[in-house]
């Protein structure tokens, strides 16, 4: 995973007693187009001015390539390659494009005895080269006053690029642009991305963001409320986040009484992917496991199900020590594992619903060593009815079923095994919404019946909405635990995106 070019952590800033920023976070990588969105007054401009060195924060940390920095002013930030382009480009209208670009820089010189004078031919060549790299259709000798707004922005950007630009910040660049000019701007941004420049642009136009951004940070009332990959969120959700609707309020979490301890893990390690894991899970609880990809979540579930051997650590299931050796033993101890990878780890695609459901607990349907198909069918039919599985026949191969129904078959199998601890790894990924709702309700009823569930999910609202507690994993360790009212997106992001500890 590429390292962060810049990270802003828990930035606060107030003006005359009023807080503009109350703990905002933002992280950007090189070669990434990052959109910063929020309603007017959310604090976007203030945050960017701090990043560009024009303002200094009251609290919080700014990290550049992993090292803490404190800009002494905007020049210091510019020297490091951070440039902010404002809506009103500060150019000299009477001068030409190339003159503006070289303003404030050391221009190429040539020696004409006894003086060093500006080598205008070099300037023209260098400018042409620069504009060519950016694919800007500008004439170096044109007067800035004669240029349109979009073109002036391009000159500003070209000027910034000329000075080994690392991060470009644009404040509402499309606010005064026409549609074709906006498209031109986006073309420019994509070109810069190809050159490895990181770009942050502020906007409150949600539909534009969807078109151009790689990642999106949403600011509201001076705080970061969400950070997402652009392809993981849609326009309605962005608008809702900006406006303040908690997306996790749509998840049907049923309160269930907490019972006895079902799982306890102490000092579990699987070098180098899991380190010193400690956790407890009780009956009636849904414990969430979150974190970025590669943080070790799935590995933990695999260890508990006997798919991976730990180097050290102890596990107790229902208070009794558990030496996990293989999945068969895990099943015997009442552990079930449902993964998103239904084909590889879940179902036998060519077999029917009945066969898949009874696969793991054949002793329930075998009498005298022979599988009694009547009993098998009846029990399976019961499962099918209870979970609402839609099937063309109990023995029709499951590969023809929809994702949601397949997932229910996998769940049916774990129910058939009467498991006490259910490990769910991305159980709703790829499912349609109605199937997701069904999954959540099945989870509810499982915990009401006294099962404990460990839920691994990259769907953050789902994780926050359905879990009692959430453990945030980072680099194989548990970075923190969120409980009760502290289970919010802000707190989660703060833990999950914290700067890496030195190893």
């Amino acid at each position, binding site marked *: 995973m590429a390292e962060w070019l810049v990270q802003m952590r828990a930035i606060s800033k107030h003006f005359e007693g009023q807080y503009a920023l109350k703990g905002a976070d933002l992280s950007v990588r090189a070669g990434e187009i990052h959109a910063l969105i929020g309603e007017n007054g959310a604090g976007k401009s203030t945050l960017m001015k701090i990043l560009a060195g024009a303002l200094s924060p009251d609290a919080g940390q700014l990290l550049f390539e992993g090292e803490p920095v404190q800009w002494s002013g905007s020049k210091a930030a510019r020297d490091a390659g951070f440039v902010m382009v404002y809506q009103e480009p500060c150019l000299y209208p009477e001068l030409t494009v190339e003159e503006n670009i070289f303003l404030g820089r050391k221009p190429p010189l040539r020696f004409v005895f006894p003086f060093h004078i500006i080598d205008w031919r070099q300037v023209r060549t260098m400018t042409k080269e620069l504009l060519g790299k950016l694919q800007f259709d500008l004439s170096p000798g044109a007067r800035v006053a004669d240029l349109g707004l979009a073109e002036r922005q391009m000159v500003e950007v070209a000027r910034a690029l000329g000075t080994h630009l690392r991060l470009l910040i644009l404040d509402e660049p499309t606010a005064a642009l026409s549609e074709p000019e906006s498209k031109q701007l986006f073309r420019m941004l994509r070109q810069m991305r190809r050159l490895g420049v990181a770009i942050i642009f502020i906007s409150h136009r949600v539909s534009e963001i969807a078109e151009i951004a790689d990642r999106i940070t949403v600011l509201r009332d001076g705080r970061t409320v969400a950070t997402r990959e652009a392809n993981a969120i849609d326009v309605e959700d962005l608008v809702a986040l900006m406006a303040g609707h908690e997306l996790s309020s749509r998840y049907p979490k049923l309160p269930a009484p907490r019972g006895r301890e079902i799982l306890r893990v102490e000092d579990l390690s699987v070098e180098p992917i899991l380190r010193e894991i400690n956790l407890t899970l009780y009956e009636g609880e849904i414990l969430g496991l979150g974190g970025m990809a590669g943080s070790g979540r799935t590995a933990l579930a695999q260890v508990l199900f006997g798919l991976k051997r730990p180097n050290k650590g102890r596990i107790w299931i229902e208070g009794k020590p558990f030496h996990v050796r293989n999945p068969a033993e895990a099943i015997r101890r009442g552990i079930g594992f449902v993964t998103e990878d239904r084909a590889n780890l879940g179902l036998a695609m060519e077999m029917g619903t009945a066969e898949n459901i009874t696969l793991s607990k054949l002793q329930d349907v075998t009498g005298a060593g022979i599988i009694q198909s009547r009993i098998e069918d009846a029990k399976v039919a019961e499962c099918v009815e209870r979970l609402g599985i839609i099937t063309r026949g109990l023995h029709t191969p499951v590969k023809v079923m929809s994702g949601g129904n397949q997932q229910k078959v996998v769940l049916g199998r774990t129910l058939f095994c009467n498991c006490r601890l259910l490990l769910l790894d991305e159980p709703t990924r790829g499912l349609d919404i109605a199937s997701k709702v069904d999954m959540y*309700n099945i989870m509810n*009823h499982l915990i009401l019946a006294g099962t404990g569930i460990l839920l691994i999910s990259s769907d953050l609202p789902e994780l926050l909405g359905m879990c009692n507690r959430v453990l945030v994993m980072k680099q194989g360790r548990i970075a923190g635990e969120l409980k009760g009212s502290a289970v919010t997106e802000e707190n989660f992001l703060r833990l999950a995106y914290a700067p890496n500890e030195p190893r």
Partner: protein
Amino acid sequence: MFVAERHERIRSILIKKRHIEVAVLGAMLGVSEGTIRRDLDKLEHQGFLTKTHGGAVLNDRIDEPPLPSDDTESMLADDYRAVSKVAACLVQNNDAIFVAGGAIAVNLAQQLKDRQRLTIMTNDLEVGRQLSGCAGVRLIITGGNVLQAAYVMVGPLAERSLEGVFVDRAFICVRGVDLVHGYTVDMPEEAEFLRAVMRVAKETVVMAVCTQFDRVGFAPLCELGAIQKLVSNKEVPDTYKQFLFQQNVQVFTTYDIE
């Protein structure tokens, strides 16, 4: 299981699922496919269903029987009870709740009899009867005009009793749930009273069985997205599950997992 009982079960299964295979029915009821086919013949003759290749499909009925009160139509009684069980999970000790009139509401009251430190306000006479005498429940009845043939009180007197009251959760029953027309009830006075209840509740929970979806009652209550939680059977049509989720309504359904 006797023939009549089996017919009842087939009927209730079909009402929920709209269509079913002979093979699955046979497995569920523990009889041969031949037996099922004979059952289906009978039910087709009665006009309840139409046989298809390998199964049967529910006939679209034009004149639906009105929503029954608590002691008729045992076929749906199981569903009411199941829905009310899930709704009861949403009631915590120390809550103050309003239980509005309806069949499911009466079932809910029965679930709450043994709770402690609950304040329950209701406009339903039967709910009141069920809960009076329960030591852990502080019961308040609204008063008002009793709607004919129902056991619910509405009108200005009932609304006045809501003054100065604020509840954590209001549990209401409706006649229909429809994508276009929203939640609907039988009588306009009921709708008005329920809207008054919703104004004094932190959260509104609608309880409905799956057969009430795509139905429209006489009096409109409110839009689908105007409430916070909905409790029903798992056979709620997929379009509703999706729409409600996108409208930020929590959809709770029954699942029979022991």
